[in-house]
Each structure stands twice: as C-alpha cells, then as structure tokens.
C-alpha cells in the first residue's frame, strides 16, 4: 500500500550505545589485564631465574672445594635442601665421562667453570630422578682432583609461578567479563524496549495521529530528555498544523458567503435574460464555475468536520452487502453511460459497525473515482469479502490505467491529482474524504494493482459469523 522509499534498517545487533560501550570497555579490560599480569609474570620469572643462577654458582663454588670424602654426603644434603624433584647433581671425569649422579651427560653448550645455562632436561638427567621436568638450570666446575661436578636446578618453580599467574588472569577475566556481559545485556533490554515504544509512537505520528506523543518514563534519563525535546517539537508542529488547517478552513468558510452572493446575483441575471440571449451560455458557465469552487470549499470543510469528529456514538450495525447494493444502484447508470461494466460481488452476512451514511459516501466516492478513471468500455468491480472471522475487505477495482507506485501514498492528500488526470474534471478531494471517513471508522486503506488497473481496499472489523 504505502510506498515510501525503502529506508536502511539498522542492524539488529549492537544497536544500543551501551552495548558498544560495554564491548569496547571489555576489550580494553582484557588487553590491560593481560599486559599487567604479563609484566608481573615476566618480572617474576626473571627474578627467579637470576636467583636460581646465583644459588647454583654459590653452591658449586662451595662444593668444589669440599673434601672428596665428604662430597657425597654434602651432595645428598644439597639435594635434600629442597624438594628432590628440583635438584640433581652429576660427577664426571676430566674427559667428561659420567661417574656418578642423576645428571648423566653434559651438554656441549655448557662451559666448565663458566656460568649457569638454561637447557632442555631431556637426555641430560635420568628420567626417574626428575620426572616431568622439561627445563633446568645447569652449572659445572672442575673439582680439585680434575673431575667435573655438575649441579642442576629445575625451572619448576618458575613454571608454577607462571601457571598461577595465568590462572589468576583467566579467573579474573572470567569473573569480570561474564557478569559484565550478562549485566550489559540486561541493562540493554530496558533501553531497547523503550526504543521500540518510541518507534511505535513515531510510526503512529507519521501515519497522521498528531496527538500521539513519545512515552516518557519516571527515570528522567537521557532517553527521557530526548523524548521530552521531541514531544515539545511535536506540540509545536501540531499547533502549526492546526493553524494552517484553521487558516485553510477559515478561508473556505469566509469565502463561501461572498461567493454564494455572487452566485445568486448571477443566477438572477440569468433568470432575467431571455432563453436565447447570446450571453446566456457565458453566464451559465460562470455559475457552473462558482458552483465548482463552492463544491471544493464544501468538501474541504467536510473533511475538517470528519477529522474533528472523535465520537463513534452514531455507529450502528450496517450490512455491507446492502450498502454495496445501494451504491451499485446509484452509480450503475453512470457506468452504463460510459459503457462500463459495474460488477458487484458481496458475501452475505458481513455486518460492520459504521455510520451508514458515511460508509455509503466513502464507497460511493471510490466507485465514482474508479468510473472516472476507467476508460469507456472498462470494468469496475465492487466487492466485500470476509478475510478472517472478524475481518472483511471492501474493494473497488477498476480496469483503468493504474496508479504509479510512487504516487500511491499521495492520492489521499487534499487536492492531489495524478499526472494522468489533469484533463478529467473533479477537485481531487473525493479520496481525501474517503481517507477521513476510513480514519474515523478505523478502516485500513490500501492501494495495489498494476498497469491493468487499480484496486483500492478498505479492511474493516466485522461481526463474527
């Protein structure tokens, strides 16, 4: 029906500002938390590695000078100093061949009497001695007798600290982000619902219900402030529209009196002229023109009158079939004159709540309009069909040239006349009257059809069968 140009609908996701803010904040928080804990992790492991290396250097300096007789006992003590799973030792001869201990091989990268290195644990120590160890710090030094002593300390503590920090990061982020996101979604529900309400309200306003206002909650938040501003604007617009309409109505109203006088004077002149006076035709045309103007004013004032009526007291049960039958009787001769076929198809038993005269006027206007715009020999079909148990559609279809899609929304406006209809008579107010009557009755108007004709429909509530 209404064919406003298609508008881009915003994507349904991340519509709300809060969502976007929350997402941005979440990302920032994750990066910041990771950086913070990462630097703590890095500093800690560096400190622990230095500490281990210093210990190893210290211990090997001490042990290399110990008497060989006590060395074995001292080494066992060294192991026992900490958990056995952290420390290991190995004794090699001057050629680097293994003599004793859990360290079974010296990696080539290790400099004897040099500083500690960090290396893979595999192949270097006996698996049974230090299971599940991947990396270790290793140092080696010549003993007084020329043999080589190697000491190892695993990186287990460092790895443990790392995993503690990773866990902390994981839990910390989970505890912050998950409730944050859930909370954000919950917070979003409110604003979204309100946006939906505002959307509904504005749609009603756009469809002509200028009395409607945007809903305002008691919270007085930013949405409410905005809604208040828009409502103030709507007040102003409604007032201005009222003024414009008032001015139009006043012009129509006030001009009627002098025009009526002018008409009656012309009419008197016409009566006094002889039938065969050469001026007769001229005066008659003047009278017709004034009648035309007065007809327009009458129609304008009639629309205003209909628009101002808010009451439905005059509504009674009206049989659609009977009404269509009467409209058909009234307009059939008009169609016949144009050699058009005026068809009537009405289901029986369709009862609608309506003002019978206004309903007749609306359907009559539609039929008159259809007859006017259908070429000679065409067909105009009026019908009433039940769509649902409590809904029916009155339709007037013609085989005329059709109304271009882009003009359809405009035809209900006052004085609108289609591009192709300039040469036909009429003041372009008939359909506005239909629209006003439909609005009064809550009927839903629609226009469709193509080049083979136009179908104008009024959907209305009917009594159930």
């Amino acid at each position: 029906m209404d064919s406003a140009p298609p508008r881009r609908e915003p994507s349904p996701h991340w519509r709300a500002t809060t969502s976007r803010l929350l997402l941005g904040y979440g990302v920032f928080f994750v990066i910041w938390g990771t950086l913070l804990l990462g630097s703590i992790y890095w500093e800690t492991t560096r400190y622990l590695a230095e500490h281990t290396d210093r210990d190893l250097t210290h211990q090997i300096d001490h042990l290399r000078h110990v008497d060989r007789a006590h060395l074995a006992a001292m080494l066992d003590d060294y192991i026992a100093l900490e958990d056995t799973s952290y420390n290991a030792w190995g004794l090699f001869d001057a050629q680097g061949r293994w003599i004793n201990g859990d360290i079974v091989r010296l990696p080539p990268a290790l400099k004897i009497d040099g500083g500690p290195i960090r290396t893979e644990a595999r192949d270097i120590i006996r698996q049974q001695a230090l299971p599940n160890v991947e990396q270790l710090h290793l140092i080696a030094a010549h003993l007084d007798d020329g043999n080589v002593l190697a000491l190892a300390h695993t990186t287990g503590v460092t790895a443990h600290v790392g995993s503690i920090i990773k866990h902390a990061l994981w839990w910390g982020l989970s505890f912050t982000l998950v409730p944050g996101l859930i909370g954000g979604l919950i917070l979003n529900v409110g604003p979204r619902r309100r946006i939906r309400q505002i959307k509904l309200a504005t749609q009603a306003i756009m469809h002509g219900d200028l009395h409607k206002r945007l809903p305002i909650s008691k919270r007085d938040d930013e949405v409410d402030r905005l809604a208040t501003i828009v409502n103030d604007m709507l007040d102003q617009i409604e007032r201005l529209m009222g003024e414009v309409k008032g001015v139009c109505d006043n012009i129509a109203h006030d001009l009627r009196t002098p025009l009526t006088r002018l008409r009656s004077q012309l009419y008197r002149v016409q009566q006094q002229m002889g039938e065969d006076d050469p001026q007769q035709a001229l005066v008659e045309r003047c009278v017709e023109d004034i009648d035309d103007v007065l007809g327009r004013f009458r129609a304008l004032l009639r629309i205003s009158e209909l628009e101002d009526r808010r009451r439905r007291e005059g509504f009674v049960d009206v049989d659609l079939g009977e009404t269509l039958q009467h409209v058909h009787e009234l307009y059939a001769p008009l169609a016949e004159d144009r050699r058009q076929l005026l068809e009537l198809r009405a289901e029986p038993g369709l009862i609608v709540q309506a003002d019978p005269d206004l309903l007749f006027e609306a359907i009559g206007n539609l039929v008159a309009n259809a007859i006017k715009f259908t070429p000679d020999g065409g067909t105009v079909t009026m019908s009433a069909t039940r769509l649902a148990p409590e809904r029916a559609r009155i339709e007037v279809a013609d085989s005329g040239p059709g109304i271009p899609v882009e003009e359809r929304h405009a035809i209900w406006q006052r004085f609108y006349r289609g591009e192709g209809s300039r040469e036909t008579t009429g003041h372009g107010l008939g359909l506005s009257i239909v629209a006003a009557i439909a609005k009064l009755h809550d009927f839903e108007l629609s226009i469709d059809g193509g080049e083979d004709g136009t179908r104008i429909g009024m959907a209305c509530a009917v009594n159930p069968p």
Partner: protein
Amino acid sequence: MPHVLVIEDDEVTAREIALELAAHGISADRVHNGDEGLRAAHAPHYDAITLDLMLPGMDGLSLVKQLRERGITTPVLMISALGDVDERVRGLRAGGDDYLTKPFAPDEMAARIEVLLRRQQPAQTRLRVGDLELDLITHVARRGGRELSLLPTEYRLLEFLMRYPGQVLTRAMIFESVWGLRFDPGTNLIDVHIARLRRKVDTEAEPSLIRTVRGSGYRLG
C-alpha cells in the same frame, strides 16, 4: 398567496430571503429574535417558517420544540451556519421539516420552501401530471396509455418529481429525497439518472415533460 414567517436575526439574510420568496410569489414577514418568533408563529395564517437556529433570546431548536409541543404543525425550514451532520439530525428530531446550511443559494431556499408548502396536500393514491400518471398503490406508471417499465430507483425519482409538478427541484433536494443522502455526489450523477428516466418517459412524438432549469435543477411539467 402563501405566507411565510422568516425568523432570522441577520438583517441582510432576512431581506434576501424575503426578496427571493417574493420573486416566487410568496409573501414574507420578518422577526429578529426567538421570543418574537415563537409569538408570531402562533398566528394561524403562516403556511411555512424559515428559522435560523442561532438566535438571540430563545434558540431555534427550543423554539421548534415548543411549537410542536403546542400542536402547531406549520412546516419549518431550519437554517444554520453549522454544517455538522449531527446538528442537522438534532434539528430534524426537534421537529424541523428541512435543513439548509448557510451560506445557501436563495433559489435553493425558495425551492425548499415551495416543497414544504405543497407537502400538506391530502394523501393521494394517484398522481397525475399532463398525460403522465402514477399509481402509488400498484406502482404502475403510464404516459398516455403506454405503461412505463421503471426500475425501483427510477420509480422513486419519478414519484418525487410528480409530487411537486411545476416546481423547481434542485439536485441536492432530489438526492436527499430520493436516495436519503446528503453528501455531494457531483452534478453529473443526478443528471445521468434524470436522463435515464427521461428516455423512458419521453418519446420523440411527445413533448418532454422533465425540463432542465438552468443553474438550478429540474422541473416536471
């Protein structure tokens, strides 16, 4: 000569009404407020009343109500600046016989008054205008001896025309009386109906009975 009482507070309108009625051979007395109007309306020699609904003193609606309560049946044409449908319904319910919205064409007003004056004829079962005859009981219409076959709408239209022979009937009056409707159907629609009726009533040999009155409407006979 019929007498009409004009109850109208606007001097210009009152004079216009009286002038137009005089042109139709009807004499008019003018009063300018409701109370005077009610008193004057009791005089038995008035055949019809034109009544402005918005009057100083007693308003038009109360006036017509009181008249009817007192058993005075003089036909009343109500004239109002309010075009509202409800206003009209209220006026007719209060006892008015016809309703006209200001501003009105004087000839339209006069035509309506003439119809009101004729309305008090005794009930008839047969209408006759020239050689045209309508039986109101059998619904048979004849011209000369020839029976006319009329559709229901055509019958009602002919009956209305025949009830007021020689009298100008405007398109609005025809639309109101025959179809009971008051919206603006466009001049064309009534003309088409009249043309159809004419084709059935007139033949080439006979003089046309339904005449067009320029700028106004139609007249039978």
